[in-house]
């Protein structure tokens, strides 16, 4: 079981939205047993990131942000709906779910 985490300001709204969407896609693809997305609080990100396999970031910064020790891709496509299929493919290939 692979763990994907997504973090936002409180681990409540934005991150939980992305988690719900990606989990639902995983379910539709029949991969629900292989990976799961969890919404976490960005203020405690350091304690979650070491035990996760992939970080879905929804906090892009044009000036460049922090580097993370695990593979990181943008979760914004799941919020806007644009490019969500491609992002999903990336998740599947990075985690070798198929």
């Amino acid at each position, binding site marked *: 079981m692979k763990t994907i985490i997504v973090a936002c*300001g409180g681990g409540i709204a934005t991150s*939980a939205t992305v988690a719900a969407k990606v989990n639902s896609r995983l379910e539709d693809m029949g991969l629900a047993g292989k990976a799961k997305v969890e919404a976490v609080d960005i203020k405690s990100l350091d304690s979650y990131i070491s035990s996760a396999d992939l970080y879905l970031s929804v906090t*892009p910064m044009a000036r460049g942000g922090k580097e993370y020790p695990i593979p990181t891709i943008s979760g914004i496509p799941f919020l806007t709906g644009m490019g969500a299929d491609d992002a999903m493919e990336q998740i599947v290939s990075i985690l070798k779910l198929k």
Partner: protein
Amino acid sequence: MDALALVFQSILDLGAAVFLPIIIFILGLIVGLKPGKALSAGLMLGVALTGINLVVSYMSTTVGTAAQAFVENTGVQLTGLDMGWAPALGLCWNWKYAFLMFPVQIGINVIMLVLGWTKTLNVDMWNVANKIFTAFLVASVTGSAVLGFAAAIIQIVLELKNADATKNQITELTGVPGISMPHPMFLSNIIFYPFAKLLDKIPFMRYQLNAATLKDKLGIFGENHVLGFIVGTIVGLVGGQGSQALLTGVQAGTALTLFPMVSKLFMTALTPISDAANSFIKKRFPGREMVIGLDWPILAGNPEIWVAIIFTIPVALIVAMVLPGNTVLPFGNLMNVCVCAAAFVACKGNLIKMITISWLMCPILSWSASDFAPMLTDLAISTGSTDILIEGQQLAWWGMDIAEIRWMAVEACRVNPIAIAALAGFAVLAFFFFKWQKKEEHDAAVRMGWIQETASK
């Protein structure tokens, strides 16, 4: 017919935790969800509401008890306990007309898109509750749900207009094109933005602090369990609990850690519905230029926001202790993004200006929270779970979004002449704000290379 009315009434009487799942289930079927998914989503909303009550009740019996000891020991009348934004907005769903805000927000948004009055499609469903809260407040003071919805509609329109008016700047900050930010907190920038410009006249205000380094050092104080432990222990110690204060500290940390875990269930419930609704809308308007309105945390990677918040915590607590007329102990919302994330945009990330604004806002946040506490308490009690509060305690939301605007609006409804004058002043400021943003947007577009400097002035 009578039997039907009786069934309907008895379901209503069981409260939002039973009533809303049925509404969401029906809504889910209407927007095309499979019955299974619709049922799961609806029931999850009931679970979220019940979960919120559980955690609020836990907070009241643990931190609330310590806070009462604190009141008795010090004589400082802090009878209201701030539960923070997530439980407060969760609680709003218990208002009897709450579910109507869904179709109202989506309907107003679609109408404005069709008429070309906005480019933003707001897909942020969490903050539907922020409109419910406004409507609930206005309805509570005026006794009219219609006026409540009128206030909420004004808020929806202003949010979309503000999102349109600042979208280039958001793209510049995030590097993501095609998004905007209709979160209500950014309406505070109608005041913060000109104020930040005034602060520029003071020389040392322009000094840039390195927020990333500060955040690495101070970040631990922003973690829910650590912050809860510190505040809980202090309250317990001043309340004369002795070594028991450490237990209060751990319990306070528990409350702040459990709130998000329960609150995120709201989004698990609402996301399938909003997804279906949004794809419905996008299908109907192919080819129309549209930006997607997102919630504020897209900015949450910026360390300035968290540093400004942490620097405000001691000030917020001291202000709460000494401010005449304040009755609320800031607790659940001490990590106050509602001011600092908005100020981040208004101050263009200048930490000293952000902290200045955040400190100056503390009295307003305390007074408005005190003013609204009785209404929130009544709402919590009206859910039928009267036992969620210990005797003599009030529930409050310190540091709510657009506290200053909501306070003006509610007091204006109470025909307070100062508030009416302030609201008129705010309207004038809003006019100029939107004008100023045109230049900011142009400048942002130039910096991103979208247009040439000479294009227009």
